[in-house]
């Protein structure tokens, strides 16, 4: 029962969020300079006939709530209309760009957790030592370096000076893609990894004094088993919470990293669409990112239920 209430409340919150985002994005079209007709005409000649055609095609003479409802209905079905710039359906344009961004984000997430979790644990295990101090300071520094700055530093160091990695583009074959995406993924993962390190360290330290861990050690269980089997599972909750924050950082970080490395992903698409006032593409991308945030956060909530029996039985409020 507790589980159902929790899921229902989270779903309601998610719908409110998406609703607010959709009003903002739809409002863009109305509020953009020149009004909706001018935006939708794009570069086509603006004659009374074309303007009338646009007004009819997009039902611009209907009242605002009706227009919004119609747009939202289409959007829910994945129909965001046609890109003003390329005249292709928006859904196709996005599907075309998705693989690069998905690859970049997935790669970055892999690095983030593969490096962040063990490093955080190592720092906690050597609490107060030189290594711990170094890791703590290093993660604070990395947190402050924005993705675009990290991109330029990596580009200059590893691509231009050392020549280990390509400077531009995303590559064709899988192997090429991996080498092309390594530096961008590192640039994206640096600050996020630092966040995971700090969270993991704090969570592990918090656990270090707990009785069940002392008891596990007293029973003579091997160190690795105590840390991984007992501590890691309990530390998973706060780290899962960071996952949601990471995702938001990932979405905006990808904009900067794609721009810096000349990758043609969704981020580059959004920047281009924003500067070309290609509103249908912008609307679709904003709602799409909003939907991703909402879905992942719901998944994280469900993961809580799986990892922590206390949450499952309603003993601890989320």
């Amino acid at each position: 029962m507790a589980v159902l209430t929790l899921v229902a409340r989270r779903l309601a919150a998610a719908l409110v969020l998406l609703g607010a985002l959709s009003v903002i994005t739809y409002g863009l079209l109305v509020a953009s300079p020149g009004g909706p007709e001018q935006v939708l005409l794009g570069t086509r000649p603006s004659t009374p006939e074309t303007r009338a055609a646009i007004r009819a095609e997009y039902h611009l003479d209907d009242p605002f709530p009706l227009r919004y409802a119609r747009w939202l209905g289409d959007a829910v079905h994945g129909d965001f209309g046609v890109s003003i710039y390329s005249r292709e359906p928006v859904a196709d344009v996005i599907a075309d760009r998705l693989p690069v961004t998905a690859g970049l984000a997935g790669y970055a997430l892999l690095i983030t957790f593969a490096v962040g979790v063990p490093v955080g644990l190592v720092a906690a295990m050597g609490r107060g030592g030189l290594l711990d101090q170094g890791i703590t300071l290093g993660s604070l520094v990395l947190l402050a370096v924005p993705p675009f700055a990290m991109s330029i530093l990596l580009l200059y160091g590893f691509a231009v000076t050392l020549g280990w990695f390509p400077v531009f583009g995303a590559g064709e074959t899988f192997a090429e893609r991996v080498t092309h995406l390594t530096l961008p993924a590192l640039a994206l993962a640096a600050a996020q990894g630092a966040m995971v390190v700090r969270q993991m360290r704090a969570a592990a330290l918090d656990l270090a004094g707990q009785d069940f861990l002392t008891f596990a050690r007293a029973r003579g269980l091997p160190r690795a088993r105590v840390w991984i089997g007992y501590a890691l599972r309990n530390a998973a909750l706060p780290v899962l919470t960071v996952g949601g924050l990471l995702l938001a950082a990932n979405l905006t970080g990808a904009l900067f990293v794609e721009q810096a490395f000349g990758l043609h992903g969704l981020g580059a698409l959004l920047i281009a669409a924003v500067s070309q006032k290609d509103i249908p593409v912008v609307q679709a991308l904003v709602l799409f990112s909003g939907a991703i945030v909402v879905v992942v956060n719901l998944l994280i909530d469900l993961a809580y239920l799986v990892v922590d029996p206390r949450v499952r039985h309603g003993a601890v409020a989320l």
Partner: protein
Amino acid sequence: MRGVLAGVLGLAILVGLFGSHLAPYDPATQDLALGAAGPDAAHWLGTDDLGRDVLSRLLTGAGSALLWPVLVALGTTTLSTSLGLFAGYRLGWIDALMMRTVDLAIAMPGMLVLIVLVGVLGGGYGWSVLAMAVLFTPGDIRVIRSLTLAQRDLAYAEAARTLGLPPRRVMFRHLLPNLAPTVVSNALLSFVAALVSLAGLSFLGIGLPAGTPDWGLMVEENRDLLDLNPWASVAPVVLITLIATSATLLGDRLFDTLSKGGSR
């Protein structure tokens, strides 16, 4: 350590205030015959592809690169501290309404919305700054409110109320000093976030016309010169990183010192 950090920030403030007077060249003067060249005696950080002096552009850009983030930090901190104190002290429906709004705002992909709004609607730098203050406020409100909740029923606050002091006085004269460590470190973190985000926006080419001597814009415009004169792009990156890191570390240290009740 803290001396070094404060030194870096102090130097940054000086350069921000007087940078445009220190610039050896006019930041807009072009030397097309020279083009992009590495550092030499005449141009300490070299020139960009239009032959403009990189050092002069950096010094001139320092003012706006630092002034606006300071304004964002002041605005965000003032707004979030007052609202957070108010919500946490008064509670009731105002608090509930405020916190639901804050939840919604925090769940939004804020930077994305900011980029889209400023990028599509135009309006330039002023709007970016204002929107950013609005964007950073909800997170801080939540922090201040939860600290206020923890303080409001402690004995000293109870005593102040029993003496018949008006709520405003209890909030700002009695509760606020106890939140000082968080307020100070929030302000520094907002400054860092604004510095980095504003530079990021201009890096994406949003909010500023091309050719403005702005750090973020310099990074983007000179990105293709990494092999000819890397400093044109790397120098602003290093400055942004150095200032952001120093402010973050200083905030961290100050929070530790202040919350231990050490030096007040």
